[in-house]
């Protein structure tokens, strides 16, 4: 059992920023000619991390993941706060779908961890639905212990691997 350092959460979120989906470029509005050119200080570059409508912003500023305690699939207070932000973003940005990926640390068997990851992903899904997000926009998948982001065999790494990540992709229901 461990308490998660808040900084760890943030670092994990930032570290993942390179993996964001490419699809957002296809669907983004207002990415016409010159959108990026000449963007001065303080200008919002559509699609970039300082565009509040971008998946990159979702990932880095809203926070795309919640972490879980050992063997648990219930949300922490911090997790709920993150998901409140996610729900708000999804309410505003209706062009996007989300896939919630559930993960486990390397303790535990492959099969059990697959099931545990599914539980975690579903916990997030249900919370977002309870906040008004249509379940049709939310998919879940479990990777069990197959896709760790941290590779040490210590609690510091395990804590970051026990996660559910909300991955944003273009493809709204009403577009």
């Amino acid at each position, binding site marked *: 059992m461990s308490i998660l350092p808040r900084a760890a959460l943030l670092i994990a979120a930032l570290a993942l920023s390179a993996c964001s989906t490419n699809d957002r470029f296809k669907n983004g509005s207002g990415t016409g000619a010159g959108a990026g050119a000449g963007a001065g200080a303080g200008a919002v570059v559509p699609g970039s991390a300082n565009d509040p409508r971008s998946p990159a912003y979702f990932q880095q500023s809203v926070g795309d993941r919640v972490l879980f305690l050992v*063997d648990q*699939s219930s949300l922490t207070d911090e997790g709920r706060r993150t998901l409140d932000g996610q729900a708000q973003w999804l309410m505003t940005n209706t062009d996007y779908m989300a896939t919630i990926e559930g993960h486990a640390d*390397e*303790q*535990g*068997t*492959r*099969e*059990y961890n*697959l*099931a*545990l990851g*599914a*539980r975690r*992903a*579903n*916990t997030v*899904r*249900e919370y977002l639905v309870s906040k008004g997000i249509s379940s049709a926009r939310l998919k*879940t*998948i*479990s*990777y069990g212990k*197959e*896709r*760790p*982001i*941290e*590779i*040490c*065999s210590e609690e510091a790494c395990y804590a970051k691997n026990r996660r559910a990540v909300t991955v944003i992709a273009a493809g709204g229901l009403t577009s």
Partner: protein
Amino acid sequence: MRHVTQLATAALTALAMLLPLGATAQDGPLRIEITEGVIEPLPVAVPNFVPETPAATEMASQIARVVTEDLVGTGLFREVPASAYISPVTSFSAPVQYADWKAINAQALVTGAVSKDANGRINVKFRLYDVFAGQEMGDGLQFSGTEAGWRRMAHKVADAVYSRITGEGGYFDSRVVYVAETGPKDDRRKRLAIMDYDGANTQYLTDSASIVLAPRFSPTGDRVLYTSYETGSPRIFVLDVASVGRRELPTAGGNMAFSPRFGPNGQQVVYSMEQGGNTDLYSMDVNSGQSTRLTQAPSIETAPSFSPDGSQIVFESDRSGSPQLYIMPASGGEARRISFGQGRYGTPVWSPRGDLIAFTKQNKGRFHIGVMRTDGSEERLLTASFLDEGPTWSPNGRVIMFTRETQGAQGQSSLYSVDISGRNLKPVRTDGGASDPAWSPLQR
């Protein structure tokens, strides 16, 4: 990319064609009681087989080598080195000089001969002698097959020797399907591979474009069930070993399906499916594609395995609050818990003899492979390490193979085997990292 050369399936025929030597009754016949656990391995001499045609010379010594490795690899035998031999074996039919083998304490002697006929087929024959009794054990046997299948013929010889001396079925002429792994922990690539039980003749059955997990043989070894992410989320596939063709099983759409295993009739498949975050057990008739739900609980139910008679299923569930082992009728219904020790239990696998259940146990930060009787009694832990998991049984129920993963950022998976006595723990040779082994039945 799937460049699998289909194994030239050697049509191996065992012909009891050789006359036994004149045998007389002796007391204290050569015998290893392996249920007792062997302390002192039995000395065995396997001189190079006699090449009866010039083209068979190299193969004759290779076959003797594989026979020796099979026997010594059990931990029940030790090799009497050729350098100790007093008289060479130059003729398969000449009488055995027992005194010469007694003098170097070779308690068992295996002699053999190899010939290659005009069509390129290989014939292998052998005899087994109880040196101290001064008599042959059983009749000589002959196997024939293609040249490409020479290792199988060696394994057949070793299986017969093992079987005669221990009274147990053999396990050398068998294969292992597993997940071959490359790359670091945070970018691991996985593909299905198949090899002989001793690591020879590796072939890859899938590419590494998507995650593949936990392959399982059909009861005849002709098909493999496994879990793959190739459609995006975990689904169950069945693969024909000979053609390497595969198809997805028609589990309910949109739900994650995993942890499949064949029933003993090769038609029924039991598996886990997740719905709304909850994982339960189902069974499917592979021909009709019809599924039946076996459990209905808010807890996780996974890792099912049939009893050899197909009447029961052992599985893992956390309905008590932590993962434990349960047995229920194969059609579903009330389950009884069988694991009561400290720690968490998972991946139970029923032994082919029906008497034991192998499992993974996690306790105080360590992992173990263990066995217990089917009523949960007589639990014994056979291994201990940072991470051991996923036992699979040898065809004769004497040996367990499993995944061992080392600790830390550079952690790698590899295969190990251990006797059910807890002795003879050793790595299994694979090309690169390996996990999730499944042992085939004996080949025919």
